[in-house]
């Protein structure tokens, strides 16, 4: 009996020590791990996006001609990218969750982002989402890239616009010949988020930066602007355009 009491005491002491560790040890451990993690193994790689129409840079107001013979110019291109993941040749990955980037044709700076990359590893694939996932869409007001002030939040109903392309074309019999594509939707069956996977060949393997092209021609070659020039609600049409966005991104 006496022994068991002593044992209990020792157990309690252990528990207390453990609790002490829980209270102070865990944050310390996290800080330590974080230091190791960030200094020893991980570096960053800049990703540069280039907005193109075929091989030409997109300049505001400049005319381009699509395969369907629509003459058009781009005023605005805005796009949310999230959940970036880098896969390496040894099948390991680095990913950043819950981080949202807003690419905006009015801000050159936004076309360059930095991703964490494991040092001395070769990238074999980059994966990311175009748009905002449904959980984030139902989590109320947020700031930073997700601030509703950025013009990428619908007002008539809740939800983010995943990407937005606006401009003018003589093919559009609309006010001022404008076209508007605001693509989004977080509710099934019109969930418009799309996952892009781009394999990266050994020969393309980036060491300093990774350049990705956003070729708007792939988009407009599939659209007849005379008939299809305004989509601003989630639905079947938005889903079709979301599917087209799968081809927008290529590695240079």
């Amino acid at each position, binding site marked *: 009996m006496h022994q068991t009491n002593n044992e209990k005491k020792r157990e309690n002491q252990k528990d207390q020590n453990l609790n002490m560790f829980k209270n102070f040890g865990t944050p310390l451990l996290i800080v330590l791990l974080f230091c190791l993690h960030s200094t020893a193994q991980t570096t960053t790689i800049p990703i540069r996006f280039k907005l193109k129409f075929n091989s030409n840079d997109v300049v505001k107001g400049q005319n381009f001609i699509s395969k369907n013979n629509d003459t058009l110019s781009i005023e605005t291109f805005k796009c949310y990218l999230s959940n970036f993941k880098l896969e390496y040749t040894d099948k390991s990955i680095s990913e950043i969750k819950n981080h949202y980037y807003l690419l905006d044709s009015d801000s050159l700076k936004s076309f360059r982002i930095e991703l964490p990359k494991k040092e001395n590893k070769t990238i074999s694939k980059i994966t990311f989402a175009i748009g905002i996932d449904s959980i984030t*869409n139902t989590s109320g007001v947020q*700031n930073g890239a997700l601030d509703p*002030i950025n013009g990428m939040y619908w*007002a008539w*109903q*809740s939800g983010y616009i995943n990407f937005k392309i606006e401009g003018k074309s003589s093919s559009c019999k609309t006010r001022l010949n404008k076209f508007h594509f605001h693509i989004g939707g977080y*509710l099934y069956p019109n969930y418009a988020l799309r996952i892009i996977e781009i394999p990266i060949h050994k020969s393309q393997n980036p060491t300093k930066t990774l350049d990705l092209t956003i070729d708007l021609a792939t988009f407009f070659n599939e659209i007849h602007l005379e008939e299809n020039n305004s989509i601003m609600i*989630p*639905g079947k049409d938005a889903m079709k355009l979301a599917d087209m966005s799968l081809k927008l991104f290529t590695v240079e």
Partner: protein
Amino acid sequence: MKKVLYIVSLSFGIGILFFSILGFTNMVFTPIYFEVPKHFPKPVYDFSKNPLTEEKFQLGRTLFYDPILSRDNTISCASCHLQASAFTHVDHDLSHGIDGRIGTRNSLTLQNLAWSKDFMWDGGINHLDVQAITPITHQLEMDETLPNVIKKLQESPKYNALFTQAFGDKKVTSERLLKSFSQFLVQLVTANSKYDKVIRKEETYTSQEQNGYTLFQNNCASCHTEPLFTSDVFETNGLPVDAYLKDGGRIKITTLKKDSLLFKVPTLRNIQFSFPYMHDGRFKTLNEVVLFYNTNPDAQKALLKKNKKRMQLTDNERVDLITFLKTLSDKEFLFNPRYSFPRE
């Protein structure tokens, strides 16, 4: 013993640090404890993401009553949401907005919103914190932009002071703005009607009210669930479509055929004062509403999906039912000075 000393001195140190910071910045926030009425379910609103303080509540309240939110500074939230009618636009079938523009739906009451998971007649708004964006930017309502509201508030000395009191500095952001609205809105709790007092055994029904309550439970309660008097879901009620508005309700949000003509079940609390009724305000009196459910074949069909027996009330029973509905009026809520226009 050493350990105890260590902990005591540590907490003392932290305390001193804390109060010296407070002293320097003059930041004193008064926390508010959100009291859930005993007979109510757990709120939906996540208070941990927007902890209530008196300062934020007062900011939200001031914003609610301020026309600065609209394009030409003429329309406030309170224009269509008046306290005396349970925060709806009394006597207007469709709500008015800026320049006398007329909206497409009857404004909803603002009551017990902390228990709602989505908002508007079609549930298009999925979180209370983003609700205010809609009326502010809607061209038939306030016709303003979020960036411009923020700019106007940032330039206002009055709001510089209020934001500083609420957040510690005067910076206006959409997150601060919208969460302040929620601070005010979630506190619009009505739980002191005669119905509530009967539930709490503080009062008793008259025999007419009691009879009405039984009729209510048999015919209405499947959608207007107690104690909130709404199931917070979307239902069809058999109302014929307004030829001009052609409002399909929930289908606009989901694009699903099954959601055609479905509307959010509104709460019946303070129903006596929130006329006219229905999403397009087509009925002026409670008697018309009850008559509609009692006689319209489509309404009867809709009700039969929920209830075992067809609703067939006699004239006297209709009177009893309405007498019960009036026990849902909460005068303390309707005239609570805490929710009213903030006089300086």
